[in-house]
């Protein structure tokens, strides 16, 4: 297909408008050579529907604010190319699953953010500002385990992908538990036992069935499913030791 043909092709974009009781509204936009889902939404807001509400910030996959459901799957829209996900020129864009809807593509992230606290997230150090910074051996097993989960951008894609969250909103979910896993592996954290107890308690890691949807969808390829398995193992092996 040559360039001119491509430029004249149209995409059919169906976008969720309204709150829980909204509906899908269809827009036609030009198909271009290089386009992300976020580009499409921005184009629609600028030229077709100024009242369309959506969230984004960095546009380069750092802030985690642009996640939405695209053709049934949660994705970071700023780094999802249309070519990769469009289904024969049709895109269906909805807010993230498992979260209350506010307007159009924006949902309320408060329940998701709360899960971080519920997973025993607050870090509590053992040193004061007068002490020298802690030395953490980058090759220790605990540091390597924490490292694998540290880069989370808090996008809620995994939370939205998880069927157990879908069935039971009391489940902490993958991102919060992944955070708990990095904390129980943080040798500077003074409350590792409490963090584990909370992550293992009601609605905690025991509710995960290892379907792996979180890992399959995490845009930066973290492995929350494995972190959760790590938490489950602590029940048998005790807190991770530094080796």
């Amino acid at each position, binding site marked *: 297909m040559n360039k001119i043909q491509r430029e004249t092709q149209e995409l059919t974009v169906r976008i969720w408008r309204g709150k829980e009781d909204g509906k899908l509204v269809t827009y036609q936009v030009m198909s271009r050579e290089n386009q992300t889902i976020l580009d499409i939404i921005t184009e629609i807001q600028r030229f077709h529907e100024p009242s369309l509400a959506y969230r984004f910030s960095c546009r380069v996959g750092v802030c985690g604010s642009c996640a939405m459901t695209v*053709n049934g799957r949660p994705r970071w829209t700023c780094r999802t190319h249309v070519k990769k996900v469009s289904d024969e020129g049709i895109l269906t864009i909805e807010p993230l699953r498992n979260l209350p809807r506010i307007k159009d593509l924006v949902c309320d992230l408060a329940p998701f953010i709360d899960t971080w606290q519920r997973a025993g997230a607050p870090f509590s150090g053992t040193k004061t500002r007068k002490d020298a910074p802690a030395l953490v051996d980058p090759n220790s097993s605990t540091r390597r385990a924490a490292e694998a989960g540290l880069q989370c951008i808090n996008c809620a894609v995994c939370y939205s992908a998880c*069927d157990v969250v879908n069935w039971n909103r009391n489940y902490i979910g993958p991102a919060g538990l992944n955070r708990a896993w990095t904390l129980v592996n943080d040798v500077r954290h003074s409350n590792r036992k409490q963090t584990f107890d909370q992550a293992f308690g009601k609605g905690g890691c025991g509710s995960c069935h*290892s379907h*792996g949807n979180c890992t399959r969808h995490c845009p930066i390829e973290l492995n929350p499913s*494995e972190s959760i398995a790590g938490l489950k*193992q602590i029940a048998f092996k005790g807190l991770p030791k530094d080796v």
Partner: protein
Amino acid sequence: MNPLRNHKSYLAAIGHRVSGIALALFLPFHFLLLGSALEGAQGLDRFLVYTDLTPVKVAEWGLVMMLSVHLFFGIRVLFLEFTRWPGHVNDLAGWVVPCSIAVLFVGTVFLIQVL
């Protein structure tokens, strides 16, 4: 189908759950029956006559299938959660097919023995 559920691990989890529930419903009766043997052979024998009927055989075959589904897919979950190696979430999705083959094998052996 919801694309979030259109993958092998999901099917394996549903199969595992359905078979687990089927076992939980069936096993009390199974033990009740075995228990009746403790009170003399008569009670058990009266039931064993029925096991010659084809529908009962088919039902038994179904239960053996349920048990082997639950066993193999349960072992798969335990491996998933207690072992780790790079990329193993996807590798273990790859276990779904071998596990299904193992279930079919058990099912076939049972059928050949019973029929």
